[in-house]
């Protein structure tokens, strides 16, 4: 069995630097949820399949259940907690609210992070592009129709 020597890391999460000594096997999702107590990032499948754990690392969406915290050392991570500006919702959050893009809400943080990454790359996605852009995120209950409407709402809002 390999010995686990802890490693010092510093990760910027939603603009704030966090330093910690971590075991290399610590997953980024655990680092966020357990070390930083930021439980907005959900763990659904823990097998890289559902996308509930999606966060944005240096501008690209990633499933944080399949990234080691040490791999994100020095990176800038954005989680769902970083979307709202105080009491003002981010357009994507407003979109999910207005268009009823969630039921139980379990998949929602990951859906929103994938949607934000998509809109950063492509501010005016077609319906098909939205569906492709969210292919790595699974929702068990809302169905995808209203989620697509929520992303379209956000795209319109962000344009104006």
């Amino acid at each position, binding site marked *: 069995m390999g010995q686990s020597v802890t490693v010092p890391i510093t990760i910027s999460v939603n603009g704030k630097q966090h330093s910690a000594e971590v075991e290399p096997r610590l997953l980024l999702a655990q680092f966020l949820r357990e070390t930083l107590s930021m439980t907005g990032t959900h763990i659904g499948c823990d097998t890289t399949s559902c996308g509930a754990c999606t966060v944005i690392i240096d501008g690209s969406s990633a499933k944080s259940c399949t990234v*080691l915290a040490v*791999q994100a050392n020095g990176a800038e991570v954005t989680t769902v907690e970083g979307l709202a500006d105080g009491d003002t919702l981010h357009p994507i959050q407003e979109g999910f609210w207005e268009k009823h893009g969630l039921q139980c809400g379990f998949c929602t943080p990951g859906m929103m992070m994938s949607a934000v990454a998509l809109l950063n790359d492509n501010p005016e996605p077609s319906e098909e592009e939205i569906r492709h852009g969210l292919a*790595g995120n699974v929702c068990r209950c809302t169905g995808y129709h209203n989620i697509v409407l929520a992303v379209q709402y956000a795209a319109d809002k962000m344009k104006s």
Partner: protein
Amino acid sequence: MIPAPFQYHKPTSVAEAAELLKKHGSDAKILAGGHSLIPLMKLRLAQPEVIIDIGAIESMSYIQEREEGIAIGGTTHYVDIANSSTVPKALSEAAAQVADVQVRNRGTIGGSLAHSDPAADLPAALVALKGQIITSSTNEHRTLESNEFFQDLFTTALREDEIISEILVPAESEETGSAYVKFGNKASHYAVVGVAASVTLTNGKCIEASIGVTGAGPAAYQASESISELVGSDLGDGAIEKASAKAGEGVDFNDDVHASGEYRAHLVTVFAERAIRLAASRAS
């Protein structure tokens, strides 16, 4: 699910990574995008004692046009290959069809080739394009032909002390067209069967053809029987149909929960035909 403990190294150059790999031998595993290795470690199907993380070596991620062809760094992400207009179409199309956005942001070409999952997309494209895999160890570089690289289930010609540092594919002339099409698993998007084709047409006649198949058998292969039907033909319906019918010849088909061997044998012929037609439509 939490991986077993391991020692972590983050080298900053290929040479340093090769030194570490030599030092730790079979106790060590290279980590690139981590999108095959970390899931295996979480399931404890892999329990390496030492992890050598090459994912942050900046000099390993690039796409360059060179005299000898197009060079792609070993840790170049799928997303960059998918968005590249420099790499041949079969390769960008294969990268664009891997899994989903999040996986394409993390997974790397070197990781895909080294892992040699029987359902991986890129190996088929590489075989069809007759790409070369450049490896680095502490004392040498080797150039391996893609046709001989993928040997069996998760088994390649890569030695334990080697790192895939670069992939080289020939630049496509105007007369050459290539394509990758697949029948993907609906949940994971892994290829149940995927076929890449590359054809060169000169004065209406096919002078060169190459077909790579993934998902069908234990590892990606070159469909040699099909090629002889295409070369010398005008790529008319007759030649394409004959070539497609032979794309699974001699293959020991995978038979699993996703598809029976019989169904895969059928899919290979259907997707070979689609790949050849699409490649031909791009060769002018």
